[in-house]
């Protein structure tokens, strides 16, 4: 296993007065696509938000490239090279697609070659380039959200449930896009409920339950062990055959 780009050690976090995370241990290996799995309410989304500095950390240590980032402000964490796509995608619906992309390029300018690559990856963006992003369909919004995250080279992408509510054909398109990113050795931490999608893309995996990481290892290991899946994720035997 390669070195960890991001590591969480016994991280506890609160949202308002509720304790959500009770000591999360997680390592995201550099250059791999890591799947963060678990049932609803296990704390997956909160883990991502905590990494981004959007919750109150009450204990533990978060390190990125060996540097502690615990308790830092969200913009500072972003500027260290972490991009985050939240569950609701966070598209600015009153802004045009172009304006959404312009903001995402923190450096101020979009690299034309990179933009071309992204537009090839997600062709609908070009078609609606100067239209308000609010007019996009759900799948197109997800494409825009991911496009925003990769408009500049980032060290790490955190993506929360990109397949949620999307039609199978669009999920396939997204999977292709992720394959491309994998080939470029981009480090990604993906929260997913869709196990087929996870199995297809994931290299390593971590499973959460009740605010903790209860299992971590390689995706192949998890994919081959029906017992483990049943025990960790409550998946029925053979459900996803």
């Amino acid at each position: 296993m390669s070195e960890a780009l991001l590591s969480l050690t016994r991280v506890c976090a609160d949202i308002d007065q509720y304790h959500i995370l009770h000591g999360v241990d997680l390592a995201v290996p550099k250059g791999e696509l890591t799947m963060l799995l678990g049932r609803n309410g296990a704390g997956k989304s909160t883990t991502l938000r905590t990494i981004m500095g959007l919750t109150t950390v009450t204990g533990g240590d978060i390190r990125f490239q060996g540097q502690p980032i615990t308790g830092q402000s969200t913009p500072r964490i972003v500027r260290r090279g972490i991009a985050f796509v939240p569950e609701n995608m966070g598209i600015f619906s009153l802004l045009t697609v172009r304006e959404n992309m312009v903001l995402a390029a923190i450096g101020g300018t979009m690299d034309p070659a990179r933009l071309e690559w992204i537009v090839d990856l997600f062709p609908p963006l070009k078609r609606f380039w100067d239209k308000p992003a609010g007019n996009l369909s759900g799948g197109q919004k997800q494409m825009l959200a991911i496009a925003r995250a990769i408009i500049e080279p980032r060290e790490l992408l955190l993506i929360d449930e990109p397949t949620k509510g999307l039609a199978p054909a669009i999920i396939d398109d997204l999977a292709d896009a992720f394959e491309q990113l994998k080939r470029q050795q981009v480090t990604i931490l993906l929260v997913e409920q869709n196990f087929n999608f996870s199995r297809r893309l994931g290299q390593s995996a971590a499973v959460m339950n009740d605010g903790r990481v209860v299992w971590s290892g390689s995706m192949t290991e998890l994919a081959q062990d029906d017992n483990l899946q049943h025990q960790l994720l409550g998946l029925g035997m053979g459900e996803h055959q």
Partner: protein
Amino acid sequence: MAADDARIDEPTGRAGPIARFHAFRRDKPHIFVLLTMMLAALAMMEPRIWVVLTISGLAMGAMVFLMASGMTLTFGLMNVLNLAHGAFISLGAFAGASVLLWLSTQANQPSLWTNLIAILPAFCFALLVAGLLGLVFERLIIRPVYGDHLKQILVTVGGSIIIMELIQVVWGPNELPVPRPDALKGAVFLPEWLPVAGGIALEKYRLIAVVLGLAIYGLLSWIIERTRVGILIRAGVESREMVEIQGYRIRLLFLGVFIAGSALAGLGGTLWAMYREIITAHMGDELMISVIVVIILGGLGSIKGCFYGSVLVGLINLYVGYLEPRLAAVATVALMVAVLMWRPQGLIPVIKL
């Protein structure tokens, strides 16, 4: 009226004139109200008077726009209701007036260029002082109460009292006469050959106010529509958290907008001071009423709405002020009530509200 609006939902395309009228009223309510008001006024008075009143109304609207734009932006972006905005107007007026009095030799020469030696520093000083106060005010008074409207109203009212009292400490409790620079006095005459409006005298200062107001509206629109900061502001109006997730410090953006809005209020105050030629510490309280009517009319948070709201307020003030001077203030508020009943969100609302 409102009920009609809800019913009409026809697809665009071929439609009769009545349906087109309804569609126009629904899609461009600001133009509709503006035209209705101007035509109604035209029907009630001589055309020549109407022209003079319209230009004067636009001048007043331009000044009110400067004062209101900052308040509508701080509300739209930061969800902060700053009731001390009127005190910023007063402070700007006193700051600008001080410079004009200090440079009164230059201000009293008949040459425009010599006058500008007094006017430009007066504007700059007003912008600077009001902007600085905005900085201090945001840090000390508003920062602790983000997200709590009740406390915002209370502390900004308290802050307003303190600023107005401090103005009286520094400049004394009495009214301060302000000299209008010589080149801005007097009137220009429209050429005789113009139909209807030929030979009408228009006060120079009002024309300058209109030009300045339009220029600043243009500048603000350009910043908001075209520049990166503008995109950021519009994004912030939609979702503050998402702006942070994109890597921008929203607090800094807040602070910047607040300072800019305060500075504009100060500039508006100086313009108003030169227009009225006499100022008091409490002038901001009265202007606040116009500002409030403007931002409710226009829709909180919208610069375009703020512009049209200002024009409407300026025009109705002048029209009604001519027909029945005693009812000018009442008519302004009545306009607000009427628009609120018709469109509770204002003429050009920002969707988040």
